[in-house]
Structure formats: C-alpha cells, structure tokens
C-alpha cells in the first residue's frame, strides 16, 4: 500500500505539489491523470524516493519512507520498479545488462541472475535481443526492455510515467494489453501516469485527477478484470518471487 499524507514540493520557489494526500491499495491499478506540467510525474518521483518532499509524509506498506526534507528509505530500499517517460535505458549496456543491473546491485549469484534475465526476456518476448543495445531496437522493443528491467527485481510497486506517450496507436494498444497481463500475473501495485483518457480508462481501476499540483477528483473505474486478460504460460513461474 502507498500512502501520501499532505505532501508538498517546491521547485525554484514554485509549488509543484500542493498538500497532496492519496492512498493506493496493494495490487490496485491507479492512474494519475491530468494535463502536462500538473505534477503527476513529481508524485511518482516522490513515491520512488527520487525527490524528497518539502512537507508531509510518504508511507509504503505502512512504513514511513519519507518526511519533510528527508528520505528515511533510499530509492533502492523501497522495492519499487519504474518505467520512465523516455524509458532511460542505459545506452552503453546491452538489453541483458540493462535487466541484470539491479540483480547485480543486490548481489544475486550469477546463475540466478542469468536465469532471471532469461525469464524476463521471455516474459516480454524479446528472446533474440539479449545482446542488442537499446539503440538497435524499435520503440516498442525498447518499451518492453524498460518493462523487463523494472520488473526484474519483482517489485511490490510499479510506477509508470507516461511510458506509451511516444508510440503509435497500434503499438500503444499492444503494450497496454501487455501491461495488464503482467499486472494480472505478477500482482504488483501499479501507479500509472498519463494525460490520455483512453489509457486511463483501459489501465486504471481508479483514476486520480491532478491539476496544478493538487488532487482534484478521484473516480472509480470498472477497469478490466483478471478474466479479460490472457495469461501466457511464461508468466506463471514468476509469481511470488521476491528479491
């Protein structure tokens, strides 16, 4: 569960997050929705620990992880995966190395690492591209690598910052399906940022509207149920694994 209590954040004297309080239940799919520059991405960065709040508190699974001007849990200690808007794939590493980086940082033994990378590659259906560099892949393939990297450590929470905004409609549809499939199978909590109504409707079980750094409105959506989503055999082996 993620909880933000009266969190505010200023950048260069401008308030970008203003007294935001929100709660995301475990396993929920919440979409942060709003116009560009309204502070949606900053909310994600606050949850991830990449930005420190100026006031308020942030809790993950009821543990206080940040309060005013202080991270009590550093980003790498929060069990969070994130897909960035520009994907942020490391250009000097291969696809395999990108996925492996977090596993290496956690000092997971080589055999387990190799197996996990293989599982992730199969999960996102990129089997032939293990040794390719991000620059050699198409936009959709890069997107899948970013997803695999974010999921490699089996995070409890997955944050996605407008990851599909640069893709064409067809690819966008495909990847939305894929995200739903992965969520259904792995059971992580998803916080998804977008300014697209279609994405919000498709991906969220709840939307939180943000405007000018404040929570304006919350809507419960029907969302797509687990039965709607096809589950591939590769994914089932990954459930309940944590690093």
């Amino acid at each position, binding site marked *: 569960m993620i909880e933000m209590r009266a969190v505010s954040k200023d950048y260069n004297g401008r308030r970008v997050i203003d007294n935001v309080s929100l709660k995301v239940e475990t396993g929920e799919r919440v979409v942060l929705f709003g116009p560009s520059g309204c502070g949606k991405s900053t909310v994600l*960065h606050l949850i*991830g*620990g*990449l930005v420190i709040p100026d006031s308020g508190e942030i809790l993950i699974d009821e543990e206080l992880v940040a309060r005013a001007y202080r991270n009590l849990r*550093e*980003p*790498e200690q*929060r069990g*969070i*995966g*994130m897909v*960035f*808007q*520009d994907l*942020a*794939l*490391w*250009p*000097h590493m291969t696809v395999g190395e990108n996925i492996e*980086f*977090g596993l290496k*940082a*956690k000092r997971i033994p080589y055999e387990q690492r190799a197996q996990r990378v293989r599982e992730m590659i199969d999960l996102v259906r990129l089997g032939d591209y293990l040794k390719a560099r991000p*620059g050699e892949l198409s936009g959709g393939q890069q997107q899948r690598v970013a997803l695999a*990297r974010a999921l490699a*450590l089996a995070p409890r929470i997955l944050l996605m910052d407008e990851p599909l905004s640069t893709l064409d409609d067809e690819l966008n549809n495909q990847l939305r399906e894929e995200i739903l499939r992965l969520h259904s199978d792995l059971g992580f909590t998803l916080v998804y940022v977008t300014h697209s109504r279609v994405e919000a409707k498709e991906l969220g079980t709840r939307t939180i509207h943000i405007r000018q750094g404040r929570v304006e409105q919350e809507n419960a959506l029907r969302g797509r149920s687990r039965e709607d989503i096809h589950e591939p055999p590769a994914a089932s082996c990954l459930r309940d694994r944590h690093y």
Partner: protein
Amino acid sequence: MEKRLTLAAAAALLAVIGFLPLLTMVTNSFFVDGLFSLKAYQALWDSGRQQLVLMGQSVLLSLYVTFLATVVGVPLGVLLGKTDLPFRLTLTVLLTLPLLIPPYVIAVAWFAVLGSGSWISSLAPETSKYLSTAYFGPYGCTGVLFTTFVPIVILLTIAYVGAVNPRLEDAGRLVSRWPGVLRRITLPLIAPAILFAAVLVFLLTLGEVGVPTYLRYPVYPVETLTQFAAFYNFSAATAAVIPLLVVTLVVLALEYPILHNQVSELRTVTFGGMRTQIKLGRWRLPLLGIVSVWGLVTVALPLAVLIAQSSSLSAYADAFARASDSILRSLVFAIVGASLLTLLGFFCGYLIHNRTLPVWRGIDALTLFLFTLPGTVVGIGLISLWNRPISNFIYGTPAIIILGYLAQYAVLPTRMTSTILDRIPRSLEQAAQLCGTSWFTTLRHIVVPLARRGLIAVWIIGYVFCLRDLGVSIVVYPPGSDTLPVRILTLMANGTPSLIAALCVILIVVTLLPVGAVALWSGRDRIGA
C-alpha cells in the same frame, strides 16, 4: 547563398591560417636551397639516440601528468559537479585558476615555496635543499604540469556529469546506491569525455616548453626550440618538429572517432537543465576539508608565496621599467586576438553546429589538431609560410603573432559557439528567415543577442589563452614585439626572484582582470534582471 559563402570563407581562412603553414613546413623540410633533399632528416636520424631519449622523456612526462591529472581530476569533477559539497563554485574557481595562468608562472611560484629564500629553507634548510634539487627535473615538471592541467579534467568531468540524462541515473538509483550508479552508469557514460580530457592533457604536456625550460628538464619540444632559437638552424628545427606532429596526429586519429560518436550519443539523451545531486550526508564536511586543503596547498599556497615574494614597491617599479612595453603589447595582442578568435570561432562554430557545408567535420578536426599541436610546431609552420619578402607585412609585424593565436586556439571559440548554438532552438532562426530577413540580419537580431552571454565567455577564454601564450609567441615574435610571457622567460636568466615574481603577479592580474570585470557585470546584470 550569403550564408554558405561566409561560412566557406571562414573555413578557407582557417585552412590558410592553420593548415597551409603545416603543409608548407612539411614540404620545406624536404628541400634545401630549393632542391629536394633529405639532409635535415639525415641529421635527425644521425642523432637518433639523443632524439629518442628526448622523445622518450617527453612521452613519459606526458604519461605521468595525464595519469595523475585523470586520477585526481575525475573524482574532483564528480564531487564539484554532482554532489551537494558546500562552496562548490568557489572551489571550482580556485581549482581552475592554474589553467588561466601560464604554466611556468606556477613553476616560478612553486620555487618560491620550495627554493632558497623560501620559508621552508629558513625553517628546514636541509629539507629545502633536498626539495629544490628534486624540483628541478622530472618530478618538478610532473608536479607543476599536473596542477596546471588537472583543471581540464575537472572542468570536462563537471560539464559531462551534468550532461548525463538524470533519468538514466534515477533508473539506477531505484536498485542501487550512488557509488554503484556512478561506477556502472555515470562514469561509463562520460568515459569518452574523460578519455578526451586525458588526451588533451597528454598532448598539451607533450608540447609544453616553458616549464621544462625553467626546470631544466630536457624534453623534445625544448630541443626543437633550441635548434631554432639558439642555433637558428631552421631546417633542423623543421625536421625535428615532424615527429611531434606525427605523434599528435596519431593520438588524435585514435581518439577522435571514439569521442565524436559517443559524446554525441551522450548529448542526445540530455535533458536541459535537470540535474540529480548526490547527497553526501555525513561525508559532506570531511570531503569539503579534503578538497579545500587540496585547493589551498596546490593553488593558493604557491600563488600567495609568489605574491609575498613580489611585495615590494621597488620590485614592481623595476618590473614596469623593464617590461611596461611588453605588458601593453600583450594586452593589445590579447584583445585583438580574442576579438578575431570570437569572430572566426563564431562562423566555424556555426558551420559545425548546422553542418552547412560538407567540410564541417574537417574544420572540427583541424581546430582540435591545431590546439593539441605544440606551440613551437605551429610557430615554425607559420614562419615556413610567411617568411618571404612578399609577405613581410605579416612576418615582420605582430600580425604573425595574431595568426598564431588564431591557429592554435581556434578550437576554443569554435567548440564553445557550437555548444551555445545547441541551446538556441533552430526554429527561432527559421522563423526569422520565413519573414524574409537576410542571414546576416537574422544573425544580428536573433542569434547573436540570444548567444550574447556565451559569446562574452568565448571572448574571455580567447583573451586568457592569447595572453598566457608562450609556445607560439616565443617562436614567431618579430624583433621588438615580444609579449609579457616571453619577456618574463627571457628575464628569468638574470632577473632577481622578486622582479620575476612581480612580473608573474602582473601577468596574473592582467589575465584575470576581464574575468573579474565580467563576473561583476554579470552579477549586477542578474540582480538587475
């Protein structure tokens, strides 16, 4: 059309100023009295062992300096550019200071610390004797050149850690602590820039003449200068500089493709203005202490002792009496040189930025090559081309010094302008063009005003480098037109330490004057804004 013509003219001018002299020099080295001859090379070959020893010493010195500058400069650059270390700006300015001063002034300053008459010698005469003996030779040369050139590594590291897309680091921070992110993401991403800095330090050390001359350490460029200045054996000097030219060319040819491809890749993923900062936590104060002590010992101490050594009115009166003409000349040459460098660099930088003509890559490579060439090589090249009756109006006048500045330092304004133009959206210029304005009008009313601050910085850098130049000036200056750095080096043989110290302080003040003035002006400008 006017755009292409102007840029082509700038490219051609740079080729005439920089490339033609080198071509003439290489060609001339194969001719004696108008006839093809390998006599100069035969003589070089005959003294092969001696030349090899000198070249070996030059290369070893360059390797030591490069190693130390990289090992120390990269961590300092990361600390100053990436962390929340207190007083980062002040420390950066302090540590950058040696780059703005001629290297041999640093050598003089260190002798004031270590040598006879210093406070060390009065406190511990034996230690001082030992230190000053060790100072004159490879150790002293390495130490002085290391402190002079380490700012290159620091500044490039600061610039490039700031250019890394913060999202790439954020993605790493979600799974790893900062040391792991730095080691496996940030530093590998900026590795080409670090390599570039190392190559620059290597080549600048290789071409340095002032410090080895002062510290009496025989290296290859000093030998070529001796052939030229002491024996006036021009063909021998010309043949002797060819190996330096070849070494520079080989090193750059090996490094250039790596740098060009990978640094460009780094730039394309940059997010303007957004930076992530490492919180040092409990390490903040200890690291501040280490960096401050480093800056105080390596920069502030020698300069303070130099100022103390010069602190008598009679020393300054003597200095002005013996070098006021050189001071004035240096000022005028530096102002003219910096202004022309800014102009030439603007057009060459524009050409490289917009890739308007296919020669842009050649111009980019040529400017870098000329910068890394020893000043003596550039100087001998200029003499090869211009020393003929028909061009005496250049060879026999200070114009030859200005041409030397333009050739040697063109890379600085060119690269800086190209970077400045990167920050101006192309659409602004295109919008003006669609209104029907000419290219020059667009430049005058759109591009130059937007790039104004950057162009002032370009001018200052040009001024500083022209003023501190020794390598080119010492070879090409016409009789009665020596510059202050040349005059100081000449007076070192028979001038008193306090006179030399006073001249060095005057040189530092004259060099830093416009930097301070612009810093003040920009501060007021910002407050006004």
